[in-house]
């Protein structure tokens, strides 16, 4: 369990090592507080999506030999779930809606959420392992976002060659952050191996 968690947070970080959820990573990481808000919403949706899709997959799709429908069913479940959560939060917990609500619609088409659900199935995790993996993926996303938001705030005041200004320099900064995460490779295997 701990090994799964640490692997997905550090050595196989979804954003920096597996390229899932790059759009929000590059788009929303300009300011620290939006980065944190977005990440918390992602953790929340990832956990919910896994909790909802695991039983559907196990008791509905696998039982009836309908695994080929996974992609369609999962994306619909995630889309419906996000809408539902948004409505419920708006009605019952407006303070939480204020904090997370604006990020929720964005998450529907976030490939990290669909990715984590599909990878859970692919790796053959049981329910508890799937949940740990999903929350871990979300925490990894949070760490990557927060670190990168810090890097970007530093970038803003610097003079950058004209052609590299804006998006290219952001990518090069992401490359360096990602390089530092490569340093974690092998740590989990060495501790738990």
């Amino acid at each position, binding site marked *: 369990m701990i090994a799964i968690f640490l692997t997905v947070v550090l050595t196989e970080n979804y954003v*920096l*090592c*597996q*390229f*899932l*959820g*790059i*759009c929000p990573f*590059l*788009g*929303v990481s*300009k*300011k620290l*507080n*939006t980065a944190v*808000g977005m990440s918390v919403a992602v953790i929340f949706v990832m956990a919910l999506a896994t909790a909802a899709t695991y039983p559907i997959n196990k008791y509905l799709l696998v039982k009836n030999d309908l695994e*080929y*429908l*996974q*992609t*369609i069913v999962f*994306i*619909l479940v995630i*889309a*419906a779930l996000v809408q539902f959560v948004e409505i419920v939060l708006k009605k019952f917990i407006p303070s939480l809606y204020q904090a997370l*609500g*604006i*990020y929720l*619609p*964005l998450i*529907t*088409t*976030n*490939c990290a959420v*669909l*990715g984590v659900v*599909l*990878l859970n199935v*692919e790796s053959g995790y049981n329910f508890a392992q799937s949940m740990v993996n999903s929350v871990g993926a979300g925490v990894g996303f949070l760490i990557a976002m927060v670190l990168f938001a810090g890097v970007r705030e530093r970038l803003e005041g610097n003079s950058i060659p004209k*052609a*590299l200004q*804006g*998006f*290219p*320099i*952001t*990518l*090069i900064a*992401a*490359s*360096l952050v*990602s*390089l530092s*995460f*490569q340093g974690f490779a092998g740590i989990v295997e060495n501790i738990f191996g």
Partner: protein
Amino acid sequence: MAEKTKLGKEFTKGLIKENPVLRLVLGTCPTLAVSVSVTNAIGMGIAATIVLVCSNIVISALRKIIPSKIRIPAYIVVIASFVTIVQMLVKAFVPALNDALGVYLPLIVVNCIILGRAEAFAGKNPVLASCFDGLGMGVGFTFALIVMATIREIIGSGTFLDGIDSLTALFGATSFTGFTLFSNPVGVMVMAPGGFLVFGLVMALANRIAEGRGKPKAELDGCSGCPMAQTCAMAGGEESCDNKAKEESAS
């Protein structure tokens, strides 16, 4: 004749002027993940193009039937159906590619290019124009992938077109299995940091060229490229999410 040139324009705009990856900054995740080898890039490009063209045609044909309030879920269902079909075809005919692309094949569903084109073009334009738009965008996507993959594969693995026989086997040719250029490659280029780095540099080059022609450079301001921007509470029309979120936090 006028009709013909218009369709030609829908096609060619996706190649360079509105290249989905390099100009519109859409579909960054698959671009970074799949561009480790040229074979993967070609395979992914073809798969995404098929889905893009088919879903554009169907969505455009149904554009008057789908109520605008639930159009996003409706688009997603159409796209997911085609992705499933492509996924099953790839599994059956090119299993090596299926293994190489892994989870990124089903993830074509959430590729912003496809939903973005459905929202921005196919939902508003006739079938034939949408078909050409999809084709152009698909080829533009494939082109950008191949550019990135060529750089990364040559530097990172020291090979070119490695494993291409898994694709050409479909046409009965298996003798050509790619070049091996040198034996001490810079491995980091095929890992995650290399992907970001090469994408950044290619992007800088694209901006430089665009600037030379007096075009504005590709911008990444929050959700401007995101297909959900219209429906998203954060985007609020023209504003980017960053601005909106800033206002929210300020108030």
